[in-house]
């Protein structure tokens, strides 16, 4: 492990911390400048019968009338010492709220990722070995199709067909095995598109390499060629793409949970947004930023270790194949 690598790691880590802090402050400012907060909206419920004076008094008693800068400082100092605060809506500690719903979202997101990877592999394999006249072109169109159908549409169709018509799961029991699987499929399909796109592009490139031609000329089977020769070099950029799709998985799970009626981070966010529950929103956004940054950090740090061609050089001189460059290439591949 060279000094250059450690410097690189430290730099990435520093950037990660800055991103997380910016996400935290940004959420605070955006939610704070919107009118209203959950405490006043509970107090303003006409059934409560509080006068404006009483509302102002209660707000002041909780320190919610202080300037935004002071409130930001208080919440930021809490956040930095690991205290996520208390939900303004429910009055419960934010960490408890998140711990209560996180398992459901993790199950959904990890199943969704597994579905996405399997689907991407299947599509990519097909594009290499299904003959053109049997619909290879169609298969190559799948990623664009998957990406362009929003996952709530997929979710609704799945609920309609498998929940109501076939009756595999009951809509009022969304945590059952089948309901979870179909939610994961709805979530995984759009995510698989990005992975498949990059995988196909790289497989195409690798398939034209001399070593592949040699292997083919020696009579190696298709499946073996795919698994032992093409897949490994082609999947290196995929590591970066998978890391990038974590954001997609988290964002998509918010929608998927709502469609399937699951109680996870998504429904927590939905409730918190509709009542402007600032502490919860900040915690969830920061948590999302932390997960996203860490996963990408791991991908970036792993990259030089996985691929000996990728070298991190300190100082002025940089080779054209650093992790950054590869990330840019793969992003282009996704865009294309």
């Amino acid at each position, binding site marked *: 492990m060279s000094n250059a690598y450690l410097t690189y790691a430290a730099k990435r880590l520093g950037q990660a911390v800055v991103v997380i802090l910016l996400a935290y402050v940004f959420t605070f400012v955006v939610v704070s400048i919107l009118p209203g907060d959950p405490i006043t*909206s509970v107090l303003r419920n006409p059934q409560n*019968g509080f006068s404006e004076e009483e509302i102002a008094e209660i707000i002041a008693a909780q320190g919610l009338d202080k300037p935004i800068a002071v409130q930001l400082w208080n919440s930021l100092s809490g956040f930095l010492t690991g205290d996520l605060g208390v939900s303004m809506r429910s009055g*419960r500690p934010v960490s408890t709220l998140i711990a209560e719903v996180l398992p459901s979202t993790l199950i959904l997101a990890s199943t969704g990722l597994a579905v996405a990877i399997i689907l991407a592999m299947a599509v990519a394999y097909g594009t290499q070995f299904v003959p053109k006249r049997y619909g290879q072109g169609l298969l190559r169109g799948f990623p664009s199709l998957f990406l362009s159908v929003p996952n709530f549409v997929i979710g609704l169709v799945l609920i309609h067909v498998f929940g109501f018509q076939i009756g595999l799961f009951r809509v009022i029991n969304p945590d059952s095995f089948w309901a979870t699987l179909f939610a994961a499929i709805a979530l995984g399909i759009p995510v698989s598109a990005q992975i498949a796109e990059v995988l196909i592009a790289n497989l195409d490139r690798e398939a034209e390499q001399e070593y592949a031609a040699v292997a083919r000329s020696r009579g190696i089977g298709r499946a073996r060629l795919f698994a032992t020769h093409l897949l490994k070099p082609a999947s290196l950029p995929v590591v970066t793409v998978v890391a990038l799709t974590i954001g997609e998985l988290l964002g998509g799970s918010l929608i998927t949970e709502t469609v399937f009626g699951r109680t996870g981070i998504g429904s927590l966010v939905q409730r918190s947004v509709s009542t402007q529950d600032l502490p919860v929103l900040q915690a969830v956004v920061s948590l999302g930023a932390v997960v996203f940054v860490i996963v990408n950090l791991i991908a970036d740090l792993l990259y030089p270790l996985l691929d000996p061609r990728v070298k991190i050089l300190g100082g002025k001189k940089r080779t054209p194949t650093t992790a950054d460059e590869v990330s840019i290439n793969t992003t282009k591949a996704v865009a294309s």
Partner: protein
Amino acid sequence: MTERSSLLSLSRRRLLITTSVAAAAALVATTGFNPAQAADSPREGGDITFLIDSLGDTWIPNNSAISSFQGHIWGHVTDKLLYVDADGKVTPWLAERWEQNDKATEFTLHLKSGVTFSDGAPLDATAVVANLDIWYAGRKAEGINPIGLFPKTYDRAEAVDASTVKVFFKKPTLGFIPTLGYHGSILISPKSIAQPASEQADLSKTSGSGPYVVESWKEGDHVTLVKRKDYNWGPAAVGHTGPAFLDTITYKLVSEPSLRVASVQSGQADVAYNASPQELKSLKEEGFGISTPRYLGFVNGWAVNTTLAPYDDVKVRQALQAGIDRQEIIDTVYTPDWKLPTSFIQSNVPGATDQSALLAYDPAKAEKLLDEAGWSKGANGLRTKDGKPLEITLHSNPYLATSKSVDELIAQQLGKLGWKVNIRAYDVVTYGEKVKYAGPAVPTYEVTRSFIDAGTVASILTNANNGENWFGLGESDAKLNDLRDKIAGAASLDERNPLLDELQHYILEQGYFVPRTQIVQRIYVQSPTLKGEVYNGVAYASYYTAFIAD
């Protein structure tokens, strides 16, 4: 509707309706569905599922007891000192009897003995004092609010002995006794009250003395209640005092109204809360139980802002009063389960009087009043005065699902008289910020509010004593002030009732309050086999007395 078109329209609601209605129809066809010929003797055991659109925000008892959602759970987990039935009749519950002094400033409550909270603590005088104190004051710095409608004249309470509580008020407070049966006045174990707010917010850490205890709950998902076998202190008024019949009640959150109803239709759940009024007729024909209990409170209607021209003119307000066809609202938006208003308070409130004559639909009278007030009709059918149009902006109440439909109908009715009507529908948060009683640019504030005692009504209409100044009158209407002070100071119902009658007449005659319909804020659709539930004065269903008939 074909399935193809519903798929193409990409509407989840429609998808669910289509498919679930189809499923329900299939079930009805295959099972030869018949309304149960129930033997109406209660049967032990059974579990029910109650589908609800939300489980509200917080479970801190003081902050949540008045919520339309959490109130269902509190009604089963906790008891009250007094019971108030759907007609506002006050009867003993955990307070077996009570006395007051002549001036209604001191009350003595005698408690039932042997009552315990589910954490084992006795429900004695000390516990009641702890509850009265927190209802009045809350713990504001901690985020525990006072109970908004608890009398602000409260001074202190003392435990005379284990079963006697003496309560003192700074001024006559005839409303104290009925308030003890109000949904905010739930008795919580002193141990739970002593907990910090963040622990009170955890429903499983709060103990009441009710017939059910919380078995499990998950925020935004469900609350499951299980019966308490040693419960033996139900209110005599409901005709049963022992343990409940049903073993468990599960409140499950299903936010889609059509899915709630379809689940009950298909037998997957027992009660669906807040169905849309339009569905009720056909559900009734299918044999499902429909309940539209009215709470004790204000009718649904407008508090008119007299600080905003032209509503400072009594003639314009009276034209508004006469220009609304209330029967058409019931025929169009609602069903015959809804009732015409007879005053600005619901007709089941003790002390409400029949002022229907003031609320008759009379477009000719309305036009005449507007002409007299100087608002002349132009060629386009709109009225103007000094070049300004006769305009009204209605802010639909986000707490009442049908509010906007009623606004749209009224817009047509007033349009015929020459009014230019604008409708704004905000979400709850924005509404709370922008729409206030007598607020700038708010000509009419739509009221949906329950109360237990009509005596509290007068005091919130003006701005004296922390009142809410509903009509923007401040202290300017001497007659209203006079009635308010006399009602607040009345020491007996005989003295108070004629004053309440005068108040109702005056408010409506002046056009300060424009009623729309009597309000039904809670709609229940239930399986035909579930019987025996009771609705209280705030229209909550209690399944304490309910059972599943064979």
